[in-house]
């Protein structure tokens, strides 16, 4: 469903992505991990065209992301995205946040949008918070609202950019639980995360990135048991030993 071929990207003369290729099938859950600065976030932001890239191709459901003729807003409305720092709109209520794109992108009616929003809030366990403002919610609650906001557009895939990195430890699980449910329901997911427990339990495949390149692309069990690259082995030994 998502195909990357020889993707490269530069900021000025600094190369941040180096010849990345992979393919993600419908219903697959792929975790991207690696040291900070390795290009993980940049890579998934290229997938929905939030970051431009200079070389290679990305196609989502057969549509080329880098093609200037592609209607990017339309494509993006079919891919949900969740950010590290939530990015809820602070001047809108929780329901307002979830309804905005439904109303103005999908052109749903006010009633239909609200009904869908409440249904999703139910699913992430925040129905009673529908009319509150984001600033009155905890980080974990805000991130669950952000997930509901992305799901409201009925996306064909979801991108998660370090969804738990800005959270206090006791709030991480409430977000991971929602994501696990989502994976069980068959959602196609690409998740940049350092949560190796989540990766081991939920991911079908793990991509390991270093210095802008995909160093390792393996089935989850194989990745954790016997990483092929020495760099990934070192990363795992550091991250799993505490």
């Amino acid at each position: 469903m998502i195909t990357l071929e020889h993707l490269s990207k530069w900021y000025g003369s600094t190369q941040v992505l180096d010849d990345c290729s992979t393919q993600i099938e419908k219903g697959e859950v792929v975790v991207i991990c690696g040291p900070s600065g390795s290009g993980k976030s940049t890579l998934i932001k290229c997938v929905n065209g939030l970051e431009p890239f200079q070389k290679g191709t990305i196609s989502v459901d057969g549509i080329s992301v880098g093609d200037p003729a592609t209607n990017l807003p339309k494509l993006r409305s079919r891919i949900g995205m969740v950010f590290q720092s939530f990015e809820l709109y602070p001047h809108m209520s929780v329901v307002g946040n979830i309804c905005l794109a439904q109303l103005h992108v999908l052109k749903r009616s006010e009633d239909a949008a609200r009904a869908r929003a409440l249904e999703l809030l139910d699913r992430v366990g925040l129905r009673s918070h529908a009319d509150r403002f984001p600033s009155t919610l905890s980080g974990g609650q805000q991130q669950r609202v952000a997930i509901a906001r992305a799901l409201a557009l009925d996306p064909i895939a979801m991108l998660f950019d370090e969804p738990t990195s800005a959270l206090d430890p006791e709030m991480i699980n409430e977000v991971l639980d929602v994501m696990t449910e989502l994976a069980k329901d068959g959602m196609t997911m690409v998740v940049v995360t350092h949560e190796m427990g989540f990766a081991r339990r939920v991911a079908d495949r793990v991509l390991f990135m270093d210095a802008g390149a995909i160093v390792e692309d393996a089935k989850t069990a194989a990745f954790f048991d016997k990483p092929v690259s020495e760099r990934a082995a070192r990363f795992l030994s550091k991250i799993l030993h505490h």
Partner: protein
Amino acid sequence: MRYNWNWSVLFADPYLGWLLSGLGWTVLVSAAAWIIGLALGSVIGVMRTLPSPIARAIGATYVEIFRNIPLLVQIFLFYFVLPELLPREMGRWLKRDLPHPEFTMAVISLGLYTACRVAEQVRAGINTAGRGQASAGLATGLTLAQVYRFILLPLAYRLTIPALTNEFLNVFKNSSLALTIGVLELTARARAVADYTYQSIEAFAAASLIYASISFLIAFLMRRVERRARLAGTLAAGTH
């Protein structure tokens, strides 16, 4: 100091009427210039934050031109110089047929000047609201125009209410410069009262008091507006 105080002159006919009509013109010039300034300033401010380098360059050029020429000079440029530079027919129309030419030119030049100041506030507000908010909006399929309309501008205005209030007070006070091209606004009328009655202290004291109390009132009202806008959960949260 030998000075014959006579405060009652301020309430005598026709001087009270002069001051009131002057106040009317001051309010009219300020309000009209503010509408131009806020509308155009928002457009320029937005342009300075767009991805397009051309839009940014146009916005930056506008701000640098209007910010770096004294307002009084700008008013003279519009009133005295512009009609000479235009093609003859247009110049003649400006000089002869334009209704209320002093008023119109004062409003335009004050409005364009205010726009460059508003633009800087709007730009700062949008930048504070943040790239993350824009990304979040774009990621849901909103167009860039929709992101500005529903997310960035509402946030930017909320964040810059105090600064924009300041700019409005500046327009209100700067409108006194309109007297230099013949608009009979409050300051011009106060000077007329002083000239006719020789009670210059009373006349200018009255003008000062009127300017100051209206400014104070506006600042007071806007502080209340700001508090209400903040209740909706901005500033403190989310905009990091």
